[in-house]
């Protein structure tokens, strides 16, 4: 599904990602772990097309998409949930969802069905349909951006720290959603600080440190061999 090779991402002189290679097979959930500043988000945003790759390549289902624009990536089936969530705060919940279906806007019946499915999965969003997205709680905003991403009908979902800053009960709900999405056959790359929860869901995992892959393996291997506490400390 996704194959990243020797990827480099730079911000001016800062080399945030320094030769990352990783794979995600269809239907798998791949966890991307590592301390703050390790380069996880930069990797993800580069795959999403929002950052330019300084070197290396990105292949999606065999196609080279290294320099594709973000609006092209979503048409190819890649949906992104950013670390900053990025709801459109002044737009209503409905309008936010509508934008998720931008690519499919001519398929009215299909979009209505997608929307119905998302509201079933996230009933709270239905209750708040007419409300400005900026007035939602953090957990509701997280649900909204996941639902909005799903409206694009992705084959590959990139999730950047979906549990960041949320209350434990909400975190459990979010992970349950991710499990449901995974069981529907969706391929997911999940960046998480909540390492143990992420590894419970993951098939394979990569650990990043200072812009490089420090460890890779099945979720069980990583859970057994990696000092998870050190991940948080960046050690």
């Amino acid at each position, binding site marked *: 599904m996704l194959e990243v090779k020797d990827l480099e991402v730079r911000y001016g002189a800062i080399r945030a990602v320094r030769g990352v290679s990783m794979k995600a097979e269809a239907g798998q959930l791949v966890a991307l772990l590592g301390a703050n500043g390790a380069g996880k988000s930069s990797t993800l945003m580069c795959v*999403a*097309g*929002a950052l330019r790759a300084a070197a290396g390549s990105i292949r999606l289902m065999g196609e080279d998409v290294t320099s594709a*624009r*973000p*609006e092209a*990536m*979503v*048409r190819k089936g890649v*949906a*992104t949930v*950013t670390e*900053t969530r*990025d709801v*459109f*705060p*002044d*737009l209503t919940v409905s*309008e936010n969802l*509508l*934008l*998720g279906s*931008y*690519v499919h*806007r001519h398929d009215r019946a299909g979009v209505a069905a997608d929307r119905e499915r998302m509201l079933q999965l996230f009933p709270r969003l239905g209750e708040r349909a007419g409300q400005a997205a*900026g007035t939602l709680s953090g957990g509701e905003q997280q649900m909204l951006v996941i639902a*909005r991403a799903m409206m*694009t009908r992705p084959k590959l979902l990139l999730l950047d720290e979906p549990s960041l800053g949320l209350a434990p009960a909400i975190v459990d709900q979010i992970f349950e959603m991710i499990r449901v999405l995974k069981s529907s056959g969706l391929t997911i790359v999940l960046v998480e600080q909540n390492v143990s929860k992420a590894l419970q869901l993951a098939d394979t995992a990569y650990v990043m440190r200072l812009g490089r892959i420090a460890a890779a393996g099945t979720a069980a291997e990583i859970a057994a061999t990696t000092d998870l506490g050190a991940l948080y400390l960046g050690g």
Partner: protein
Amino acid sequence: MTFALQFLIDVLSLGGAYALMALGLVIVYGILRLVNFAYGELIMVTGYALFLAGGTGLPWLVMAAMAILVAVATGILTEYVAFRPVRAKSVTAVLITSFAFSTLLQNAALLFISPRPRNVPLPPIFSQTVEIAGVVTPMRNLLTIAAAAILLAVFAFLMRRTVLGVAMRAAASNFTMARMLGVPANLVITSAFAISGLLAGVVGILWIGRIGTVVPGIGMEPLLVAFIATVIGGMRSLSGAVLGGFLLAFIDTTLNYTLAQDLLKFRDAFTFGLVILILLWRPQGLLKGPATGQRT
């Protein structure tokens, strides 16, 4: 009573024109975070297009529609010539190219037409007056109010009820996120410039209709008005721009009515003084725009 009505008509007609000018500037600013300094020239171009169309003998409405179309085309051209090639490079580069394009258009008018004022064809309605409830007012004021009301309503409808409009609002709030949902950057930007050109075209006809002539530098005042109105209203907010336009018109009209004759030539100084006071009170402008966002 008649005085109040007179005042109201003056504020609404001036404010309608100002609001349209401001909206045309802010629609581009909201998305690119860049002031289009060639905006005033869209109004100039409208004037000269109307002047040139005057020779064709076509019905006036057709000529006016052609002039507005020229403004739309010039707006889109601005984007292709001054913005698109340097958009990704730097803010400074775009500011310079938009200045350069503005100067280029003005000089083209100087060179190929004339530095002197040129008469534009106007239908008699622009010089007629009407009497409503004892107030005698030029028809063109009522035309301006009607045009502004219609355009603002259509604009609000488009931005709220069409997918492209919602996409443009989203892009104004967070361009990268909108693109990650599949909204094409170029479509949104070109649409913004086209709408900007449309608003400039309509306001250009109404504005030039007040004076009756067009000169190469005619765009300067509308650009300044639009800029001040958007600064007052909050640079990032569409409704703020409209509010700012009407507020600026309210200030200008009040000063027109109250300042002694020999102080009137200092009206702009008073206006700017008040604008500074408003900004000291609310540095972000009256309405805050979307909270997040980044430039691309």
